[in-house]
């Protein structure tokens, strides 16, 4: 493994473990509610959820079939909170690649090593992708186990499809924070951009579905390429996932080009 990749992974080991535990705890907590909800149809059924305002239901991804296994898993875990946890985790990792070490001053010695600047960014991105993959694999295994344990009845390949989407979404936002950090050298702008794109993208994709004026914007929302294919119901939306992965690669190229032409630590 290239030196910078293994070094970054070693440096972020603790933070990766913490994220895995945090996301795992979220999955455990929410999936443990499922038996209770599936047994109380009258409380959580379609009719009950109809009481929520339409816009709010849109924002929660529709909340259809909430008492079924797949509906619950989709609505509670894979619609909003699961992806958002991955997005934040990835954005933090993305900042640790360039912006944070630049702010703290440790990047100065790193760029004077006999490593090409472009390779430096690429290797830090590889570490980000591997770290995020580690969190995704661990939490997938947990989600699969829990889903079977509480009897959601969702097939494992569908969970894998949804989890892959969450991973790719995270990878996209990680690359976004890496790119902004590589261009600006500071964490603030990277977090701001990630925040705006994530929140804006999510709102556009969910509420925009029923608002003609903004529905065209859904095409630029990263969430569109995860949510629109409904992976828990329909399996891998391959084309959409390729778009997400491709966008992450484009952002990596942007990061490399921006970092390669810049003064460090000024």
């Amino acid at each position: 493994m290239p030196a910078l990749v293994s070094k970054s992974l070693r440096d972020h080991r603790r933070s990766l473990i913490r994220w895995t535990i945090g996301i795992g705890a979220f999955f455990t907590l929410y999936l443990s509610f499922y038996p209770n909800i599936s047994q109380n149809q009258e409380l959580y059924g379609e009719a009950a959820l109809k009481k929520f305002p339409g816009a709010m239901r849109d924002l929660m991804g529709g909340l259809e079939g909430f008492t079924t296994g797949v509906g619950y898993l989709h609505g509670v875990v894979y619609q909003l909170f699961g992806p958002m946890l991955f997005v934040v985790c990835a954005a933090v990792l993305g900042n640790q690649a360039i912006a944070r070490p630049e702010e703290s001053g440790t990047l100065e010695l790193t760029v004077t090593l006999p490593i090409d600047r472009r390779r430096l960014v690429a290797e830090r991105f590889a570490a980000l992708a591997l770290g995020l993959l580690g969190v995704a694999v661990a939490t997938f295994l947990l989600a699969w186990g829990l889903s079977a344990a509480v009897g959601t009845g969702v097939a494992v390949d569908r969970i894998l499809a949804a989890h892959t989407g969450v991973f790719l979404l995270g990878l996209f936002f990680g690359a976004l924070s890496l790119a902004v950090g590589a261009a600006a050298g500071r964490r603030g702008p990277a977090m701001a951009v990630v925040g705006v794109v994530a929140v804006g993208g999510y709102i556009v994709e969910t509420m925009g579905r029923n608002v003609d004026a903004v529905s065209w914007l859904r095409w630029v929302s990263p969430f569109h390429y995860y949510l629109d294919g409904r992976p828990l119901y329909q399996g891998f939306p391959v084309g959409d996932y390729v778009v997400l992965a491709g966008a992450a690669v484009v952002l990596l190229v942007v990061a490399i080009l921006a970092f390669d032409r810049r003064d460090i630590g000024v």
Partner: protein
Amino acid sequence: MTAVVRTEGLTKFYGRRRGLEDLDLEIRPGEVFGYLGPNGAGKTTTIRLLLDVIRPTRGRMSVLGSDPRDPAVRGRIGYLPGELALEGREKAGEYLAFLAGVRGGVSRDRIAALAERLEADLSVPMGKLSKGNKQKVGLIQAFMHEPEFLILDEPTGGLDPLVQHEFLAMVREVRAAGRTVLMSSHVLAEVEDVADRVGIVRQGRLVAVEDVAALREKAVRRVEFHFDAPVPREEFEDLPGVRDLRVEGANLSCTIDGRPDALIKAAARFTVVHLVSAEPDLEEIFLTYYSEENEEEARHARAGVQEPA
């Protein structure tokens, strides 16, 4: 032999702020070059340019015969940053092993030997190291791979006198091995014992480059002679290099500028009981450059007014 560093018109502006302007500098193989100047003079700016941390606004440079953008060249350099940042739970030893690996490998024994020499504890998490102990780790990483060219930005900052002494010994060994050193400092005293030449930079401009030996020769030194009987003043007047002459009975004091030869020969005609010669004060010369530069600055400013905008 080709120069280790050669810059032509090297200039760096941070936005509109001047960091360095029109630097023409040559550092020769095997020499220790002291790079001196007050705060904000442009020392760190120069060094960061040489390592491709920042990019020049204009001008040209070559380091070890190539462009410092070439990663391979950077592998032949040892660099101690002026503001060394070491942090986190990582142990200094692990970090050094990582740096060594990237630079093509350094034996554990070599790192251990350097650590022992500088009395650095490599088992402490870096975030918990004191300033001086961080500096030691910085020195170890700069020296450990025996680079052809060492660039040290204020290397003695935070070091206690014993460690400073050891560090200077390390620099001398590097020079004895025919390798090259560029080290920056605020004061001449810190580098004069090891440097072959010094460059003095001020307000972004190189004001002077001097041979330390020549500087020493030029240096003003105070000399006092005590004779066994009063001496005639005329015998010592108008000797080359002798200034501020004072003769009071059997005591003579003066300052000499350059070689003391003529004075010694004149004094030898009488019986010398006691001789006092103070170390040449290079610092004084150094400060002269600073004040001379003030005048030059004023001249630049006047020239600037005449130029059409």
